[in-house]
């Protein structure tokens, strides 16, 4: 696909559709990336890189920034997200990318932000006269899944911090935002841009991937577990693999939190979590568990949530859907309609004349995978014990729990969720807005990628 604006052909993804990609071109591109890294990136002070990333990220929040304008103009047709959803999503994402936060990330991951530039010691290490420095991979290959841009953009930022050359392979039709972000980096620092490659090809092109994997030091991939397993098996011995499987998330509202006074604001926060990125991310809630016997019942909360989703539809509409996705929603609605007609334990609220949003209330605690695109369940439960039993089928695959509980109980709930296997707990309303220091899947982000050199003096 070529952009209607005159963006230069910096990346493979910029080439016109008639350009034929071959394994040899990919190999050549990887080698050029690595040379450019040696020349332009490997020895740049980390602090400079942090400043560039922070500056570009700040630009992305400027309504006049040309790349942002392009993203918002072309995005709705290209990505399926409405302009307002894209704008809100990009704002939330880039607001986190500040110099201060980038330095916090470096410190969290490496102990000391200077360690990518030189040997440095933590106080304890100084006592034993030891210092360490971290080396990022020369070339990271990213295999990005789906059309949610944030994970791909975040990976690129991590790679730059690590002074790595990067080759990002997008899923078919999902390259627009990563491309525009890469162009914005190129525009800010051409030498930095020369260490990035963005390409797009349909899954299953094994010869392309082989060429890429042969050149990369690290491969980062997101996708279904079987896809990840297949990639892992095809990597050369020397290549490190970092796979991130699909995850699900849900919300939990304790009876003490859901008071009459707070019900509306909690529903607003829950609606924000559902509406962000049209519920397509691993951090988006499939359902909200609401404890029984609070001041506001689960059923009432579902009703308020429906009103808030309708409000979102007015200012941040859901994107338009292909007919198969809309049919999934219509079919599920038909099913819950029938249940609701026959049982007081099920109720459903739907947008009028469209599939824009759906709330299903059920007394049945079973964990339900949503068909997404702003289709969410609210379920009444007795206690956290019941939730953990009901969610057993997704144990080990839960990313985030959006929690509403007073401080007195929140700590214990969080502790139990953590022991059960949840890797992130956050307030409702922030599920799709993790801090820069978030450890995806409970693992280190930068620390997972570096190789250490220890120096014992």
């Amino acid at each position: 696909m070529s952009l209607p604006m005159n963006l230069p052909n910096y990346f493979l993804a910029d080439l016109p559709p008639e350009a034929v990609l071959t394994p040899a071109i990919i190999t050549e591109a990887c080698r050029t990336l690595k040379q450019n890294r040696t020349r332009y990136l490997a020895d740049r002070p980390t602090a400079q890189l942090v400043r560039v990333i922070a500056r570009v990220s700040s630009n992305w929040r400027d309504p006049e920034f040309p790349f942002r304008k392009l993203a918002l103009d072309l995005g709705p047709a290209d990505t399926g997200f409405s302009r307002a959803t894209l704008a809100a999503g990009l704002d939330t994402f880039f607001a986190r990318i500040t110099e201060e936060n980038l330095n916090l990330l470096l410190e969290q991951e490496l102990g000391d932000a200077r360690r990518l530039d030189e040997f440095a010691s933590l106080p304890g290490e100084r006592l034993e006269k030891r210092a360490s420095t971290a080396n990022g991979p020369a070339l990271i290959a990213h295999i990005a899944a789906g059309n949610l841009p944030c994970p791909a953009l975040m990976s690129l930022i991590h790679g730059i911090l690590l002074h790595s050359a990067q080759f990002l392979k997008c899923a078919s039709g999902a390259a627009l935002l990563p491309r525009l972000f890469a162009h914005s980096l190129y525009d800010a620092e051409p030498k930095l841009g020369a260490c990035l490659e963005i390409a797009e090809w349909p899954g299953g092109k094994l010869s392309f991937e082989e060429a890429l994997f042969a050149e990369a030091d690290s491969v980062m991939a997101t996708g279904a577990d079987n896809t990840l397993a297949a990639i892992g098996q095809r990597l050369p011995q020397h290549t490190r693999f970092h796979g991130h499987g699909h995850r699900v998330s849900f919300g939990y509202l304790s009876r003490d939190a859901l008071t009459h006074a707070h019900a509306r604001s909690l529903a607003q926060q829950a609606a924000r979590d559902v509406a962000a990125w049209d519920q397509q991310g691993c951090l988006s809630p499939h359902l909200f568990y609401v404890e029984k016997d609070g001041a506001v019942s689960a059923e009432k909360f579902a009703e308020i949530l429906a009103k808030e989703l309708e409000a979102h539809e007015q200012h941040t509409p859901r994107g338009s859907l292909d007919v198969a996705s809309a049919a999934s929603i219509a079919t599920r609605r038909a099913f819950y309609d029938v249940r609701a007609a026959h049982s007081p334990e099920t109720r459903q609220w739907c947008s009028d004349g469209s599939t824009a949003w759906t709330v299903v209330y059920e007394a049945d605690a079973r964990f339900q995978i949503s068909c997404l695109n702003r289709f969410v369940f609210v379920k009444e439960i007795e206690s956290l014990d019941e939730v953990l039993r009901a969610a057993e089928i997704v144990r080990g695959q839960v990313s985030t729990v959006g929690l509403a509980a007073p401080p007195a109980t929140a700590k214990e709930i969080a502790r139990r969720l953590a022991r059960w296997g949840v890797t992130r707990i956050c307030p409702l309303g922030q599920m799709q807005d993790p801090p820069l220091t978030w450890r995806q899947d409970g693992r280190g982000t930068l620390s997972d990628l570096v190789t250490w050199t220890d120096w014992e003096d």
Partner: protein
Amino acid sequence: MTILDLFSDYAKRLRDFIRAHTHGVLSSPLQNETRFNELALDLFALQFQHNAAYRRICEARNVRPAMVAHWTDIPAAPTAAFKELDLTGLPPSERTTLFHSSGTTQQPPSRHFHNAHSLAIYEESLRPWFAAHLLPDVKAGERVDLLLLTPPPTLAPNSSLAHMFETVQRDVGSSHSHFAGRLDTDSTWVLDVDIAFDAIENAVAQNRPLIILGTAFLFVNLLDALDGQARRFTLPAGSRVMETGGYKGRTRALPRDELHALITTRLGVSPEGIVCEYGMSELGSQAYDRVAFAPSAERRLLFPPWARSRIISPETGCEVNDGDTGLLQIFDLANVSSVLAVQTEDLAIHRGDGFELLGRAVLAEPRGCSLMTA
């Protein structure tokens, strides 16, 4: 009048309507539409009154018979409701036959109850439309050799398809007709290869046309068995195939074009002799996509004049334009004992009076996520 009397009065009028069509006593399209509408509204009123589960669905949508003037406004019951509820107007003592959908391991099957009267209507609906598409060149009273790729109803008493095939066999099958399906140890349907090969070999040896009716997955069984023995047949001229979709993970799934191509190369049945059928246990009528050996070029599935299909936009609930895709709805006057308006989970393209089937809407799998199926 009892419930059964009320239904039998309707059934008599429906029979007249079916006969008028099959005996060529065709009225004008307008009269036809008026008659269809009258029958549909009357049947809706009966079903609203006597089918409690359906009535609750209608009431939840605030629809009562008095409010409905046109058949398109009759609330369609989703096929999922056949899984959840006893969606029937028959009192429990009258529910003598039960048709199940084949179902999947995760989901309960659909349940469609029948009694002798509703089965009789089912058979009267299927006969003329089957004959019009599979036997256009077969004279009344003439018998044909059938190879039926399902288990017989004695082994599959809950299969509407096996019942349909038995009805066809009773009506037009010769003494050379056979069921070639049986149950595997886990109750799934498998092909009895010996019976199938015998029937095919006999047809070739005696130069008698063979009509093979079956599900796509048993056709795949048959074609794989031929391949396994490196055998090819050229069935006698006039041989034909009726194939009905659905794999449900039981065998390797083949795209329809590929399946048809293999039927042609391994059995010698020309593409014009392959007819696709669309039917479900929840319905009383079937749709076919062509008349065997007729010169018509374009395949599209068409229900008989006593059943209508509509393709509905999942986004708005309104009928889509010709050529557009949506969810298939069926209004079937022969669905007497359950509900006449059925909302399927199948995506289809609106093609004139009929449709082109695309298949089941993907339900459970969240986009970009493949954790499990709900």
